[in-house]
């Protein structure tokens, strides 16, 4: 039975009818609480309030009820006959900062389920929804991903308002706008679209909202749902929407003309558009000295190349092109492989899968056990497999270096994409040598070149080449030289000329 017709019903002036309707809709849930009270003894009017236990502040509710029970009796009877009585009640009785009058049962039910308290009074065809939201939530802690050595330690939580406040604390400017949307027919998840008016790429906010409005799904439990439902390249292994748990990263994105999407109940905030190169940028690149930031960024690019290509290059060289390996190195590899009964391709896939297995097991197990699994697993599998002659020592080194390199990529989803791409590259290299490696690599490159993130080419500003945006791609140039925002921003000016510091003239 659908409750939609009941939800669309208007609130009537009969308290009993309204209560019956709400109880039919809500059923017998134990956390759904109904509380009766005498509203006005002189006119014999009853009142009732509904709320969800656990989602509201009991203290707050007690204050409201106390105010109603004491002061409602003092109301002159003629006030209760006026047309704008609810407005009068709002003014005279409710001292809460946030409340609103409603006319539909559905609005009341949504409010109750969202942590508000619904007040219905006999004789009034309107209800009052009072914001009494208060539930247990995690406090602000350091984010689990995107860790930094230098920089703020606060991370987003599961509370959308806490998250937007963390960004608002960083950008104290009225042009920071937060537009509210609700997605999910059952979950009615709150979404906030954040942007800087005047800086955001023209048309981007409308595009983001249009895509979100198109979502027709029963539930949104995490921002990953939204990510998959609004991205430009749904079949791609690459993530075309940025994700972060760091408020400073979101603030930086907004200041560069991007849009952030906050989703309630998750600490992961989405940013659009996103470029491939951003996945190699860490927050502390911008907080450390630019020499250090640039150096570590180059290290991350090297890590990316190692993570993507090292196993496939090794498989290709050892399987097909041994003459390309320097002689001494070739002898070392050959001696290690002497007792290994498998082709290099099988050996590589076995080891890569074992590594992924250990990583996954370490992640899913309870923390103390998980650490033991990853350490013991790597020690035992690595050492024992070499001693048993199942894999060569060189392959263990290759897989270990590749694994470490993949962890050096700051963005977790980008790291996962690269890990996935590694396998087709290994298989193509192991089966067709240089031909397979080159063919598969170019297919990946063409694919990356063909996709977009909210209309922006994914590999920009490298391809297509945008000279003005090169200051923050491979190198992180000093802040005083970074005078303009990225070219997608509507307002290009970031800072005035002459920002380079100088010693005082003596």
């Amino acid at each position: 039975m659908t409750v939609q017709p009941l939800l669309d019903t208007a609130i009537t002036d009969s308290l009993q009818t309204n209560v019956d309707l709400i109880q039919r809709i809500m059923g017998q849930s134990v956390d759904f609480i109904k509380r009766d009270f005498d509203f006005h003894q002189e006119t014999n009017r009853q009142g009732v309030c509904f709320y969800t236990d656990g989602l509201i502040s009991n203290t707050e509710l007690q204050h409201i009820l106390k105010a109603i029970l004491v002061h409602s009796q003092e109301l002159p009877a003629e006030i209760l006959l006026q047309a704008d009585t609810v407005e009068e009640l709002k003014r005279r009785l409710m001292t809460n900062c946030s409340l609103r009058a409603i006319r539909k049962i559905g609005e009341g039910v949504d409010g109750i389920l969202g942590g508000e308290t619904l007040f219905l009074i006999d004789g009034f065809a309107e209800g009052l929804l009072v914001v009494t939201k208060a539930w247990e939530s995690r406090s602000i802690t350091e984010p689990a991903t995107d860790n930094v050595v230098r920089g703020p330690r606060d991370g987003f939580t599961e509370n959308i308002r806490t998250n937007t406040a963390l960004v608002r604390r960083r950008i104290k400017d009225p042009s920071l706008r937060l537009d509210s949307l609700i997605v999910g027919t059952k979950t009615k998840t709150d979404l906030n679209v954040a942007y800087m008016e005047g800086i955001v790429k023209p048309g981007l906010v409308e595009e983001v909202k249009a895509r979100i409005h198109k979502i027709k799904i029963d539930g949104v439990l995490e921002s990953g749902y939204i990510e998959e439902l609004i991205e430009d390249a749904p079949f791609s292994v690459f993530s075309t929407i940025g994700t972060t748990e760091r408020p400073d990263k979101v603030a930086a994105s907004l200041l560069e003309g991007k849009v952030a999407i906050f989703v309630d109940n998750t600490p992961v905030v989405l940013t659009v558009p996103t470029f491939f190169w951003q996945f190699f940028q860490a927050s502390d690149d911008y907080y450390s000295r630019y020499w250090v930031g640039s150096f570590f960024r180059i290290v991350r690019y090297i890590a990316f190349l190692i993570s993507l290509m090292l196993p496939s290059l090794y498989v290709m060289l050892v399987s097909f092109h041994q003459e390309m390996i320097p002689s001494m190195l070739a002898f070392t590899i050959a001696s290690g492989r002497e007792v290994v009964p498998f082709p290099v391709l099988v050996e590589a896939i076995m080891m890569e899968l074992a590594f992924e297995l250990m990583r996954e097991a370490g992640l899913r197990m309870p923390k103390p056990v998980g650490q033991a699994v990853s350490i013991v697993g790597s020690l035992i599998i690595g050492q024992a497999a070499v001693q048993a002659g199942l894999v060569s020592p060189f392959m263990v080194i290759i897989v270990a270096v590749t694994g470490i390199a993949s962890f050096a990529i700051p963005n977790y989803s980008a790291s996962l994409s690269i890990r996935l791409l590694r396998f087709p590259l290994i298989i193509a290299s192991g089966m067709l040598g240089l031909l397979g490696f080159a063919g598969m690599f170019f297919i990946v490159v063409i694919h990356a070149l063909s996709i977009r993130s909210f209309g922006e080419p994914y590999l920009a500003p490298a391809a297509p080449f945008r000279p003005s945006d090169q200051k923050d791609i491979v190198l992180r140039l000093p802040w005083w030289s970074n005078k303009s925002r990225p070219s997608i921003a509507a307002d290009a000016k970031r800072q005035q000329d002459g920002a380079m510091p100088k010693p005082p003239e003596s």
Partner: protein
Amino acid sequence: MNVRITNGMLLALVMNVIYAKAIGITQGIIAREVASDMWLSTLIGMLQGIAAAWLTARVIRMGGQASMIDIASKAAGKWAGKLIAAVLLLFFTGAFATVLVTFTYHLMDYFLPEAPVILFVVAALAVGLYGAYHGVEVMGRMAFVGVFSILILNILVMMGSIAEFDVKNLLPVMDSGLARTVWASRHFDTDWSLATMMIAILLPHVKKPQRWGRASAVSILFAGLTVAIWPILETGVLSAEATREYIVACMQLARSAHIGLFLHRYEMIMVAFFATSSLIQIMMSLFCASVCASKIVGVNDYRLLLLPTALLLGGTGYWIVADHLRAMIFTADYWPLFAVPVAIGIPLLIGGISMLRRNKEPAV
């Protein structure tokens, strides 16, 4: 096809489309004709290419900023357009065969001698189809990666071979005489002819028409300069006598390059960079041939004809590449006789017809 690319993308595409075959297969053929004057022959070919590219761009701009096929249709009727499209389809089929010769012999002869030819053809077609399917904008972006690869490759080969360079190998200059040197440049002409015919199809989709002539000419100039390093190094390091003995002369130069004692062979790294240019040649040949085929059949979307065109080009290419002797006779003897007249003749013919029609039209 409503996509517009920049003049920079056009430049990158032209450089890539010329580069891969010109540095090796072409130089070996030229060396067999004019020995140490191969670098001069290449530079003379480059000058001809600059003129041809400028002419092609001029004809397209004069003809109403449409492709050469559409200009022919407008100037001489629908069937004339289809005829030009058929000639160009034939051109791109031949060009694809020479490109496939380059791609296959680089990889097969030097890295995978036991692999069957069909494997290279299928791999080239698979990557080419994937790129061509995504259209000219993606290929244009890929060409930027290609230009980066070309620069790296040139730097690597110079680093690895400059120590062995002997300027005496380049002497005496013009030993073969001017006429023979100019005549030998027809082999490099076949390389830029692929670029100018690509321009003939692609130019209407390039932004800023006022820059078309200069951008096309400069593209050939840049491509010629990046190619010219190779015959100079091949002559100076290997000597013309050694260069002429090889089908893929550049691979011999790459194989002899070394940096110190530990990195004594790194031709595979160089081939990885070379593959970008070669695969862009393959994609562009497929793309242009499909556009021509779509004009013949009369469909708007070239993608519908990508697969049949790939089968035609792949089949022809395989037949030529499968036999080394046939491949070299085709590339060295027959292909220049077809490619160069087409590359020069079609712009001249269509430009002439357009001018005649313009003169005949009554003044309004």
